[in-house]
């Protein structure tokens, strides 16, 4: 008799379920606009040329082996990662506690674990909507920490309700609360705060003594400009005295998804805190993974540490973000051409991979079942799945489901 006889079946993750369904779909017309990974113009995975070159260079290293990294991770990677996010000098480095993690998920998880232990926040504030996993991560780490949402996406106008964000945090957040912020290319909306809006958010955080926890999964991928994409974080770092965290992923901007390369940075503002924080991070990480995986870390460190490879990488980033931009243009053109009802202009100004379409559940289902076009149940569309070959078909499919919908 199993000890687990009364265990319930868990609802599987929606995004992964769609990936499986898409794989099983035999239609030659199928288009996958659900997942958050880049695809080239041929709708296939793209290994960045800078990554390819780095791998070849690493092959030439006769001392290469598979030994453990230190608990904190690859030193070269962490050093470069700090510079990349914060534009950190060596002086800055003494105020940042950094540890290599299992990509962005691992960084979010370890950061939450750290905060649950080290600062014991009462509430964690998450944007409405946000990456689905933010809620899951915090719930698993400590269910006692209240998860609350702050207004973000205005469904009617496809803009950010920044007044709502600020007034909610102003009136409801308490000292020590954690605020999860997207560094750039907000997932799923594609809408980012303007610089002035970021300044206002920073003011609220300082006033209320909140702990900003930035999720940075698209640096360089969003606009093609590394500094621009990290502007918000750098502003908070240089212009506030806030202790803050950054979960940094190299999955998208290096195309190293499955290698799980990431880092968690904790910005300490008090003398002597850094080494203590590093020790806590080490102990937490040791008890879950011991050490982080080397393969992907070596590649990223190689690229970031080599002038030519880094330049190639920046070209690769431009290539990806340009393709996203041009697909946005093509999609909006195709919808305008058909005069499809709805507001589509925001798709041109949204940043990164994603946009919200505002499509309703029954329309999304129809798109999948009748046209084999896959979107997330939330109506999020990923530009990465669009190509010259399928953008007209997708526009046509969207047009049809919108027209077929019952009038409001």
């Amino acid at each position, binding site marked *: 008799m199993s000890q687990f006889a009364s265990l319930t079946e868990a609802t599987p993750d929606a995004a992964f379920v769609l990936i499986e369904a898409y794989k099983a779909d035999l239609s030659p017309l199928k288009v996958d606009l659900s997942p958050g990974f880049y695809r080239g113009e041929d709708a296939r*995975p793209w290994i960045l040329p800078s990554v390819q070159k780095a791998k070849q260079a690493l092959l030439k290293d006769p001392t290469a*082996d598979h030994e453990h990294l230190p608990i904190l991770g690859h030193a070269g990677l962490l050093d470069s990662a700090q510079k990349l996010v914060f534009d950190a000098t060596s002086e800055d480095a003494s105020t940042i506690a950094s540890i290599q993690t299992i990509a962005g998920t691992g960084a979010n998880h370890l950061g939450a674990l750290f905060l649950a232990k*080290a600062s014991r926040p009462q509430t964690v504030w998450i944007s409405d909507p946000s990456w689905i996993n933010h809620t899951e991560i915090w719930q698993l780490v400590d269910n006692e920490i209240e998860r609350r949402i702050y207004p973000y996406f205005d469904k009617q106008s496809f803009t950010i309700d920044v007044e709502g964000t600020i007034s909610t945090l102003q009136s409801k957040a308490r000292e020590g609360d954690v605020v999860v912020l997207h560094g750039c290319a907000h997932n799923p909306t594609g809408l980012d705060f303007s610089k002035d809006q970021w300044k206002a958010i920073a003011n609220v955080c300082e006033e209320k*003594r909140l702990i900003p926890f930035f999720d940075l999964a698209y640096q360089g991928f969003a606009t093609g400009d590394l500094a621009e994409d990290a502007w918000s974080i750098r502003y908070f770092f240089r212009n506030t005295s806030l202790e803050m965290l950054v979960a940094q992923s190299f999955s998208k901007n290096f195309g190293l998804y499955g*290698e*799980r390369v990431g880092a968690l940075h904790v910005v300490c503002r008090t003398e002597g805190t850094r080494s203590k*924080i590093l*020790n806590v991070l080490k102990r937490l990480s040791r008890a*879950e993974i011991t050490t982080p995986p*080397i393969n992907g870390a070596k590649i990223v460190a190689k690229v970031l540490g080599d002038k030519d490879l880094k330049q190639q990488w920046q070209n690769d980033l431009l290539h990806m973000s340009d393709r996203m931009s041009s697909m946005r243009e093509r999609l909006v053109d195709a919808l305008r051409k058909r005069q499809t009802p709805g507001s589509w202009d925001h798709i041109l100004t949204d940043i990164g991979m994603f946009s919200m379409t505002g499509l309703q559940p029954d329309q999304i289902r129809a798109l999948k079942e009748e046209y084999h076009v896959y979107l997330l149940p939330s109506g999020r569309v990923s530009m990465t799945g669009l190509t010259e070959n399928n953008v007209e078909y997708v526009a046509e499919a969207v047009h049809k489901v919108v027209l077929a919908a019952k009038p409001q």
Partner: protein
Amino acid sequence: MSQLAATSFPADLVPQAPEDPLFGLMAAYRADPFEKKIDLGIGAYRDDNAKPWVLPVVKKADAILRDDPTVNHEYLPIAGLPAFTSAAAKLILGANSAAISDKRVHSIQTISGTGAVHLGALFLSKFYPGKPTVYFSNPTWANHNQIFSNVHLPIATYPYFSKATKGLDFTGMKRAISDAPNHSIILLHACAHNPTGVDPTQEQWKELAILLREKSHFPFFDCAYQGFASGDLAKDAWAVRYFVEQGFELCIAQSFAKNFGLYGERAGCFHFVTSAGAEAQKTISRIGSQLAILQRSEISNPPAYGARIASLILNDEALFKEWEANLRTMSGRIIDMRKALRSKLEELGTPGTWNHITDQIGMFSFTGLSEKQVLELRDVAHVYMTKNGRISMAGLNTGNVEYFAKAVDRYVQVTILQLEVYMRGLFSRYHPEADLCSSSSTVLQKLLLTYLILRELANPNSFLVSLEKRRNFNK
């Protein structure tokens, strides 16, 4: 910039934590300039030149993957690379395992062995009925304690190592497992116990199975050395397979760090096996779905590279054979070092019995030295081992085994000499006129001396305090 307010990370929540003992030891070793220093601390295989050894079959697999145009860096599924996890299950359970053909095994790829133990612990902390206590051996791998504590499972230990025999304290182990409340979780090392190197015999495993069944305990196997221990994959998996055959519901944390030399690539697997029955497949499906949620919320999906290498090797007949040969190379060298160390100590006539060195199995051996003695050996002989007295046989090679044997011999001899001098000093305090060397000293005086020696032997700390004082005086 405004004046700094108090930190969100106060000292009572973020205290100065002690350095991780194992990685701290590595740092101390690296900093030591002594030429003949020996690193017997870290649990990674080293070849006869004290260098890391990339398995030839792993090099081959790496080259194959490099030339494969279909290999990319895309996400693996949440549960990992299917070809890897299914091969991993066959490896530990046996290709013909009824549990596999009954489809009552769920396998999920993890961040090496640590990740597997952690995921298993996390799962049990959330879904095991009641508030179970996890029992592990005293001693066990240093990390077990932290892994289970961090997921808020109460922990306890069962006796394991007998200092007297340097073997298994089977009676103590059975008693504690029997005294534990029913439905406890019992952590067992599948083979090559870390840190002692002492494994139960097959007969003892059978007895344990009977006991665990009587108590309705849940076995949690930690398997980090399959193939690495004896060189024989089936032999090293015997205990796990036996328990599965006996119909237990159990779980297995499986590491590929040592037996594939893939340490830093973090290749591992967690297997959950449920007992046979009408509901088995449904149960295992539900368990799998919950494990996926936990995995998704911590790492999303596991790292691809190490799993691809291992999968390639496990699923290819020729590469698999080559891997078995590489395993025999590693385990063979370890066994040779055990034999060499034992024979050298016996050659030198070092007081004590040394058969435990070849009776124990796997990478590690428990010397039985106390922490103070370990630190002394480090200072005096520049031999590095973990504070619990564990040595890694992989750190021994034909170039240093003699030095090590001599260092141990020297240390033991000196210790006994010092002890004798100390005892004489102590004795003469009570009987200043007595001359212990004289044949006229009474039997009573000699018996008293013997008693004092035995008493001190039973209390090494008090002796060594004195030894240190003596040392400092001599400096």
